């Protein structure tokens, strides 16, 4: 057990230590300074932009950023939708997997475009290798889009009074080629030499030692799994995601994959500090996030190590903790840690089945996605946190009776309205979706086209845990996370379409909101700091932001958590 805990702590510390130099590098990239890979990629990018007729040097205001961002996403969505819809009759399909149904293709295309990777299919039987390759492309670009949006907000925070906030395509391509691509290549190679396959051959038929005939799924997995974590996407190559022994073969590969999903969200915070030349500000943000993260991680790891009380009563030994849905090579400590890392960050890859987590862990996983601002996904994690900063500045301003200012700009009614709307949107989408699904399940409604059979048929567990399955699915969608209580029968029109809509709204509105606020603020007159200015790089302000997050998340979600995992906890006691 000590070697397990030591493993967890060392992975966490190594990630933080490496995030600082990477943050400095990212800040250089967004400042358009010279960096290491320029000689390789500058000519390639120039060529691509020239042939495509895209101007990647003109300065854009926030509306132009938004327009470019939304246009590229729309094009990618339609391309992906068509590939999935017709994959069965397209090349690179050695296992002869069928084309997707329209509702599944809709859900899958959206969920990869928005960096969620909800995956209502199983990788082995649901997609061809061609589709896997295109989905992998989306894993790069959706992460790149999130980072480009964050880069624009960075620029808006730095400039005094301007509407020139850099170029979307420039931020986007540099995020992809200078950050995501090299890091993914490193991770992919590490995985390869730990036993993850990278082959275009299909299933292998073997006879086992005992004499049974078995087929073994393989595929070009190593490249896919690397970007799935580096880009905080989380979509698995195989159905069992990173619990699959080929997707995550060893304790070491597990550490690499954990590092890979933590590194960019960590570095983006430090990058902000280097970029604004306000390092203390970034330490305050990182501190708030880390406190939140640890408050979620510690109870989870403890409850997984303690095991299932109901199994304890059967009289067997749970020296290795709660093992249902877990792999022996990882053990409960690092699995518990992973389950929170993947939910605070919007990765959503799993190395255990969250549906079988202990109730305390389940509620922590949910809470992590409900807050959705501790570290967070590639780029968008900071955007979510930015909303809470604006709200905290506003509330602090009211408390001391001054016009709230943030980095020398007045925060006025319009910005606060946008921030409040975005903050309320998240619980609204989660709770109304869950209410709808629970209503059907409670009445056991016959669902007709939407689901074959009655609504309770989509549950894999009865009672409180069943409710949690539905709550988790909408929470995961709204947080663009992509993990699931996978017992839920979600590949049907009801779940594909409702979560698809939630995904779409909860990706783009929380990007549009912060972009708009940052753009509006950047345009305002700069007020120099005075004795009356609220200092945002102090511990007190950190506590303030944390309180705002805790109040919004706790107040809006506590009733739902009480009905689901907390109730289950008390029945299991």
């Amino acid at each position, binding site marked *: 057990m000590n070697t397990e805990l030591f493993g967890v702590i060392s992975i966490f510390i190594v990630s933080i230590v490496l995030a600082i130099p990477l943050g400095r590098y990212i800040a250089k990239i967004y400042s358009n300074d010279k960096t290491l890979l320029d000689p390789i990629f500058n000519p390639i990018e120039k060529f691509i932009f020239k042939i495509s007729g895209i101007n990647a040097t003109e300065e854009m205001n926030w509306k132009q950023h938004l327009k470019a961002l939304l246009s590229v996403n729309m094009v990618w969505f339609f391309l992906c939708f068509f590939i999935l819809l017709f994959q069965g009759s397209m090349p690179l399909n050695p296992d002869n997997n069928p084309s997707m149904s329209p509702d599944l293709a809709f859900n899958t295309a959206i969920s990869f475009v928005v960096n969620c990777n909800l995956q209502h299919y199983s990788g082995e039987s649901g997609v061809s290798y061609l589709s896997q390759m295109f989905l992998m492309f989306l894993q790069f670009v959706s992460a790149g889009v999130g980072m480009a949006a964050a880069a624009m907000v960075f620029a808006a925070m730095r400039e005094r009074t301007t509407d020139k906030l850099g170029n979307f395509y420039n931020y986007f391509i540099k995020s992809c080629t200078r950050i995501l691509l090299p890091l993914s290549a490193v991770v992919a190679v590490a995985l390869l030499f730990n036993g993850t396959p990278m082959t275009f051959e299909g299933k*292998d038929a073997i006879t086992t030692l005992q004499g*049974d005939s078995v087929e073994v799924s393989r595929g070009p997995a190593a490249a896919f799994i690397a970007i799935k974590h580096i880009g905080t996407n989380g979509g698995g190559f195989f159905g069992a995601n990173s619990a699959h022994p080929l997707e995550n*073969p060893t304790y070491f590969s597990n550490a690499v994959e954990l590092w890979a999903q933590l590194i960019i969200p960590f570095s983006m915070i430090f990058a902000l500090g280097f970029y604004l030349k306000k390092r203390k500000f970034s330490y305050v943000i990182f501190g708030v996030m880390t406190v939140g993260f640890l408050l979620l991680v510690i109870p989870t790891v403890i409850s997984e190590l303690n095991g299932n009380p109901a199994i304890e009563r059967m009289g067997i030994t749970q020296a290795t903790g709660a093992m249902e849905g877990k792999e022996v090579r990882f053990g409960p400590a690092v699995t518990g840690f992973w389950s929170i890392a993947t939910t605070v960050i919007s990765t959503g890859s799993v190395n255990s089945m969250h549906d079988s987590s202990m109730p305390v862990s389940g509620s922590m996983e949910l809470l992590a996605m409900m807050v959705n601002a501790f570290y967070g996904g590639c780029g968008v994690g900071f955007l979510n946190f930015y909303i809470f900063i604006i709200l905290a500045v506003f509330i602090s301003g009211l408390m001391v009776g001054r016009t709230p200012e943030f980095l020398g700009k007045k925060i006025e009614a319009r910005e606060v309205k946008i921030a409040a709307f975005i903050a309320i949107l998240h619980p609204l989408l989660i709770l109304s979706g869950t209410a709808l699904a629970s209503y059907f399940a409670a009445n056991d409604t016959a669902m007709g086209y939407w689901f074959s059979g009655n609504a309770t048929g989509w549950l894999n567990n*009865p009672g409180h845990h069943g409710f949690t399955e539905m709550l988790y699915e909408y929470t995961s969608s709204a947080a663009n996370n992509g993990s699931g209580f996978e017992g839920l029968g979600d590949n049907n029109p009801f779940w594909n379409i409702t979560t698809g809509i939630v995904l779409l709204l909860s990706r783009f509105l929380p990007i549009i909101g912060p972009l708009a606020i940052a753009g509006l603020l950047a345009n305002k007159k700069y007020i120099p700091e005075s004795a009356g200015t609220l200092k945002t790089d102090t511990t007190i302000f950190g506590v303030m932001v944390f309180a705002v997050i805790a109040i919004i998340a706790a107040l809006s979600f506590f009733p739902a958590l009480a009905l689901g995992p907390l109730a289950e906890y008390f029945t299991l006691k």
Partner: protein
Amino acid sequence: MKNIFSILKFTLFIVVLFAIIYPMAIFGIAQFAPNKGKGETISVNGKVVGYQKIGQKFDKSNYFWGRPSAVDYNAAGSGGSNKGPSNADYLALVQKRIDTFLIVHPYLKKGAIPSDMVTASGSGLDPNISPEGALIQVKRVATARKLSEDKVKALVETKINKPSLIGTATVNVLELNVALDALK
């Protein structure tokens, strides 16, 4: 419209970069990886008997068994049971697994069974069991093979992967059984 056309061209180029050149580069490096990136296999007398990382079904009494699997070790797919910890049907199933385990291993006390032997893994393809999970099966396997218990136990000891600094202690069931077959 011109805008959309530009984006399409742009997309085509970056598809080439991220979905063709990148995976092909990794595929090239894979040729130097174990079994050229096709997954490491284990062979007996030149015949492949399994993948080192993929668990397989063992239910004969002369072999060490792996963990229960929600997909019955069918490696064309993967998955866990997704049963919640308070689910009554699930708890009844675990109880039944414990009872069955005790019938087949009558020499055991209930408290000696580690939880990994009666719970399904996340992937359904877990290649490992805990060292305790292997040690409690020694007597059964030794009896079935008419070998001395000490000899089989010594073999298990050699197959335990203990973590040096970080990690968990594991036994790869397939490797253990291959070594068992070679034992005279």
